[in-house]
């Protein structure tokens, strides 16, 4: 009997903790309601007395400190621990692989050095896409699907990658001053030298005919080499500008990164 009551009291406390009200729990257990009510009322009195909402400023500062420490760990861990724990013969094998990678087989590098960054609404790094108008006027819509974005650390082979939260952007909506944030999260503080995006699909609808056309993208990757810095206590917004240009009079188009309009900016006009 007592065990039953303990269990019911426990269930009601769980329910109240999740936001249910006291009356609902009492009505579910009418046989126990007389005994339950004063105890749950006491719980309410105690919670009310001590409950407070921590200051938003203090919480924000603590969050930044935590994410900075997390970023620092992530910056250090993959490379250091990789060499620390690897057995000796494997070290030589790895060195050989790296040498090969440096002299030509650049494919291996991303596999070894591409930790994934975690998105966060309060992160210190935002990534935006914009479009410099060249031949975008030919399109009614031009949807670009971005599967991954990578940041290359300066003076290092280290790369960090993230998956955009918004994967498909319509470049016709992002002309000129317009841009769209596709990811926000925490990036380790430091100097970076290059940003690249992996594009998995580009579908354009021509304004004149309504025809759907594939827009070519050599190697499915767009890169912009540009030095920039990410710091812990500021939000760095990187805008990657893409432009579409006609390749002649053959009705074909290609996508190109537009370095002149890309880079770190403090203020961007974001699409709602």
């Amino acid at each position, binding site marked *: 009997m007592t*065990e039953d009551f*303990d269990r019911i009291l426990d269930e009601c406390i769980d329910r109240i903790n999740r936001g249910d009200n006291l009356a609902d729990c009492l009505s579910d257990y009418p046989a126990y309601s007389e005994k339950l009510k004063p105890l749950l009322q006491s719980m309410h009195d105690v919670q009310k*007395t001590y409950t407070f909402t921590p200051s938003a400023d203090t919480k924000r500062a603590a969050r930044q400190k935590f994410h900075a420490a997390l970023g620092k760990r992530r910056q250090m*861990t993959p490379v250091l621990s990789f060499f620390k724990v690897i057995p000796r013969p494997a070290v030589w094998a790895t060195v050989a692989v790296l040498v090969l990678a440096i002299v030509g087989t650049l494919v291996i590098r991303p596999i070894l050095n591409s930790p994934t960054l975690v998105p966060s609404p309060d992160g210190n790094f935002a990534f935006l896409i914009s479009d410099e108008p060249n031949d975008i006027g030919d399109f009614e819509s031009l949807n670009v699907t971005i599967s991954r974005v990578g940041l290359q650390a300066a003076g290092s082979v280290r790369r960090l990658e993230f998956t955009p939260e918004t994967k498909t952007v319509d470049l016709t909506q992002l002309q000129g001053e317009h841009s769209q944030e596709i990811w926000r999260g925490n990036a380790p503080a430091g100097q970076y030298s290059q940003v690249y995006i992996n594009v998995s699909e580009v579908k354009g609808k021509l304004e004149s005919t309504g025809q759907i056309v594939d827009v070519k993208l050599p190697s499915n990757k767009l890169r912009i080499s540009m030095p920039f810095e990410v710091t812990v206590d500021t939000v760095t917004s990187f805008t990657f500008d893409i432009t579409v240009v006609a390749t002649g009079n053959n009705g074909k188009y290609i996508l190109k990164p537009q370095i002149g309009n890309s880079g770190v900016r403090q203020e961007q006009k974001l699409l709602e």
Partner: protein
Amino acid sequence: MNIGNRKNISRINEYETRLSDLYEEYYDKIARYVYVHISNKEEAEDIAGEVFLKALESLKSYREQGVPMQGWLFRIAHNLTVDYLRKMNKRRTVPIDSVVLQGNDNPANTAEKNIEFEWVTEAMRQLTTEQREVINLRFFGGLTSKEVGGVLGKSGGAVREMQRAAIEKLRGIMGVER
């Protein structure tokens, strides 16, 4: 890299992500948990922030054996709170001015809140240490009785029993003194 080491690194990476996910949900709860012990909101907030940094530093030692990560965070909070109280050499009495007041409170409300705070604090003080910890983790930490059992090394049934006894005691004290 051998499989064991690779697994270890990926386990720590997974724990880092999970800890980061728990931040938003548990920062406030941990701050309240600490506040119940130390009766100082600003210090409680600072300690809550410290809990996550300490957890990050100690992730290597975290093992998921019956204690979920949120329970482990409260263990860290408990240890930091004990350190704090030891450092402050503070007796657990509540200064009347430690109750945070709203700007539009009138003096009568203020006095009433202070009395209420002292009255509940006094009732809490009369619980055993374990009962107080159960109440604190359940009411302010939002942990389930099973999770509290993991933190305190008790069975869920034992926690439920302690919880009922503690609330009955609180009810008795508060009911009589009210």
